[in-house]
């Protein structure tokens, strides 16, 4: 008997996300988002998703603008230097999106609660905030030890987690940067908080090659449900050390999201018409992708 390959196509992987599920998308703000996967979800017309996150940006705004999302639980939705997340804003103001706010560290701790199998995460500092005034999923209680006022914050409890990483093998071992930053740390926590884990990677390499740096494998095969090869799969967000943020594509996105109509045109042009991720990359063109690429001298 041979070991099972976990390689799937983007279509197959996205198909396991069902309408109404709780979805956590890796990365942080405008960095290292699993955008190829997000675009495939839009193509498949997923509906009624709950996005659960820490600091969200284009990956959430795009899904919201495409009508896939009915609820979001996070500390931030915006495009940083590219401005507000206009689809998010419109949906929240129209009342078609349920917004559930958390503080940033607590939004992160909710994934730790899921990782640790805890029924809640303890928070000490929510008194007086709009968070507890409006978020009824947070339960106040008295500390069983000190009597102090505390809040029980619900676990993130995602049904599916999707992250985009640099490389992995066919069994689903996925390596991370040696020098990490917080987007990589979010991804690592996310992939330990859930039992259905989809990882899109720039490149699938042999198991033998992966074994050269077992210390960098932060997602062991045992946790991976599907691994999908999706080069430039974070575009237009950056992938640290591999390619830069595509500022032009972000500006295009920000402008297109000004109205539902212009955003509809944008989705047609960048998501539906290209048909799949290969079509999306072909549309961008070799010159543009190579210009974004980082290169350094081999070690």
């Amino acid at each position, binding site marked *: 008997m041979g070991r099972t390959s976990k390689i799937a196509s983007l279509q197959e992987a996205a198909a396991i996300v069902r309408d109404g599920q709780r979805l956590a998308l890796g990365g942080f703000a405008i960095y290292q988002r699993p955008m190829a996967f997000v675009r495939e979800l839009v193509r498949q017309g997923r509906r009624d998703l709950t996005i659960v996150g820490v600091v969200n940006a284009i990956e959430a705004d795009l899904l919201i603008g495409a009508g896939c999302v009915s609820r979001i639980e996070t500390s931030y939705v915006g495009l940083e230097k590219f401005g507000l997340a206009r689809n998010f804003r419109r949906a929240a*103001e129209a009342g078609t999106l349920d917004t559930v706010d958390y503080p940033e560290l607590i939004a992160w701790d909710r994934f730790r609660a899921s990782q640790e199998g805890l029924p809640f995460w303890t928070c*000490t500092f929510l008194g007086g905030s709009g968070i507890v005034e409006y978020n009824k999923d947070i339960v106040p209680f008295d500390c069983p030890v000190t009597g102090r006022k*505390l809040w029980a914050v619900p676990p993130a409890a995602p049904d599916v987690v999707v992250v985009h990483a640099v490389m992995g093998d066919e069994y689903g071992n996925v390596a991370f940067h040696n020098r990490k930053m917080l987007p990589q740390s979010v991804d690592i926590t996310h992939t330990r908080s859930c039992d259905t884990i989809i990882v899109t990677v720039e490149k699938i390499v042999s198991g033998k090659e992966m074994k050269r740096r077992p210390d960098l494998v932060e997602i062991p095969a045992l946790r991976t449900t599907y691994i999908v090869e999706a080069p430039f799969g974070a575009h237009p967000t950056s992938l640290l050390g591999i390619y830069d943020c595509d500022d032009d594509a972000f500006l295009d996105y920000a402008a297109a999201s000004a109205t539902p109509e212009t955003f509809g045109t944008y989705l047609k042009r960048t998501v539906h018409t290209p048909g799949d991720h290969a079509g999306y990359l072909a549309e961008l063109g070799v010159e543009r992708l190579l210009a974004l690429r980082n290169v350094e001298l081999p070690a």
Partner: protein
Amino acid sequence: MSALPYTIEELITVALAKSFKDGEVGFTGLATGGAAALYITGIPLAAMELARQTHAPNLTILLAGWSINPDFSEIRNLPSAEFDSGLQNLPCEAQMESYPGPYAVRRGDVDFGFGSGVQVDRAGNINSTCIGDYRKPKVRLVGSILLPEHMTCFRREYIMMPHHEVRSFVERVDYVSGVGYPGGEAGRQALGLTIGGPEWIVTPKCIFEFDRVGGRARLRSIHPGIGPDDVRRSTGFAIETDGIPTTEAPTAEELAILRRKVDPHHALIPHGGE
């Protein structure tokens, strides 16, 4: 203002720097774009570095929360992105590679931070979440982000408001993203908050401090060249302007250190004179 031998940003930078004690730890985010970046990132970094180069050599800077004691003396512009190679390669003493990181924010490691919002009220609550009713907002904004932690886990917070206008300085914020002094220090205690709270509100016109018993913002100083009427008209809650001192002008020596050593390439704030 043009008559003054320094910019308003230099004035604020020096005033902030003097308020930091040696050995403290200061936290600032990396904001990008215009006045917000200047007030949340540029001025705080310049002020902390000025303190380091004068009376507080042991002050620790947490840039974007994760680059510890960065050396930005050689940079021409602030990095425009938090998590790209540019900031990763900025020389510094230590980096946070994973959460929770090398400082214990909820043990009280951070002495002060800098935050902002679209609204601040007389109790020092700030709002970055929405305008209007939260459940049916007139304008939905980005969310609370780290402001709840700034206002309760840090030991004090400098609220940095790049625009001093009636619509931003309100009687009561529409949503409390970061909690101030409702009911004063006793009010915070009753809410279960053991440390922290707003220290100043810094604007292009003045600096507020807080009456911690009454839980109300009051003027600490008005910047040179700004009239009391201007400040009152710009503020949406009642304030007393009588007898408020003028914000202390920076000395020639302070300006020299700021311009030549702290920010030689004018990457952090606009400079005057010379």
